[in-house]
């Protein structure tokens, strides 16, 4: 199986929205296998999205199972994923296979509900939180032509938020 080339910034194709998968066939499965091998060949990536290898279809792979103390659903192939509900927000640090040598802070929902299809077209539904929810939001952004660099917040934002949290008495 071939490891695919990963597009990197400033490749314009990373900004192109992806379209829904309609054919759940052998070709799709072969692509998923190659996409996952590409993810695993990279630097400790927990997720990858099809447009990162120049295929503009709504396909992402997530696997947070290798991380200790992380609530997760294991290895997931999500076709045509859609977030149906989200709540809370939190700042966390992200990097991206398509943005080498850079990490930055991004605000993401802490908890979400997700609908998707499996590689055979069957329905999937998940409730996710924390790190895994962050990974899903990052990958779904890729499907809409967005990179985390489009969402990076100032280092100072954290101090500010922290103070707001404390005033509100919310736990953190």
């Amino acid at each position, binding site marked *: 199986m071939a490891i695919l080339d990963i597009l990197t910034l400033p490749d314009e194709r990373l900004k192109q929205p992806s379209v829904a998968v309609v054919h759940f066939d052998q070709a799709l499965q072969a692509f998923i296998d190659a996409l996952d091998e590409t993810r695993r060949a*990279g630097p400790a990536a927990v997720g990858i999205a099809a447009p990162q290898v120049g295929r503009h279809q709504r396909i992402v792979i997530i696997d947070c199972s290798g991380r200790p103390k992380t609530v997760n659903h294991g290895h997931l192939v999500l076709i045509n994923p859609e977030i149906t509900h989200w709540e809370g927000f939190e700042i966390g640090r992200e990097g991206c296979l398509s943005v080498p040598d850079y990490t930055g802070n991004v605000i993401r929902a802490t908890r979400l509900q997700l609908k998707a299809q499996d590689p055979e077209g069957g329905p999937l539904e998940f409730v996710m939180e924390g790190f895994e929810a962050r990974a899903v939001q990052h990958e779904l952004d890729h499907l809409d032509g967005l990179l985390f660099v489009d969402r990076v917040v100032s280092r100072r934002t954290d*101090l500010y938020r922290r103070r707001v949290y404390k005033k509100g008495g919310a736990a953190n």
Partner: protein
Amino acid sequence: MTDWNIVTLVGQDRPGIVARVTRVLYEAGCTLGEASMIRLGGSFTILLMVSGSRPNAELEAALAPVAAELGLRVHLDQVQGGLHQHLVPNIQVRVTGADRAGIVAEVTQCLTDQGFNILDLESDVVGNARAPVYIMNIQGTCARTLEDLEQALAGLTTRGISVDVSPIELMIG
């Protein structure tokens, strides 16, 4: 390896400083690298990596007119190294407490003793003049466990400083 200068500029804050300074550097043929620019108190401070293929005297001469006009003090340091040397922090330490002398030294000494390498420290004094509160956010790398760090910092808590240690989880996707 490319030669870099770190250019420091400090002066009374006013709109347009960054645009003017970077325009001058661009027109002098300089390449800009990493930068930290922030308002501290009423001053605007710039720390900026500038490619140093030109002699320092030339760079200083290029900056002199805009520095004089905007009232900026300029300092140049030729440095080793260059771009693409980022370290990723794995621990965040947040500190808050009634402002008093020595708070930064106490916390950072404690961290240093644990082999903590500070990559980024930002602090602020908030509240009001009669009851100032010190807030500090430190990010860095440390091989010790969270528990070790917490234990090491526990002594500070009893002296009225609130210290929160948390992991920075990097998500790559």
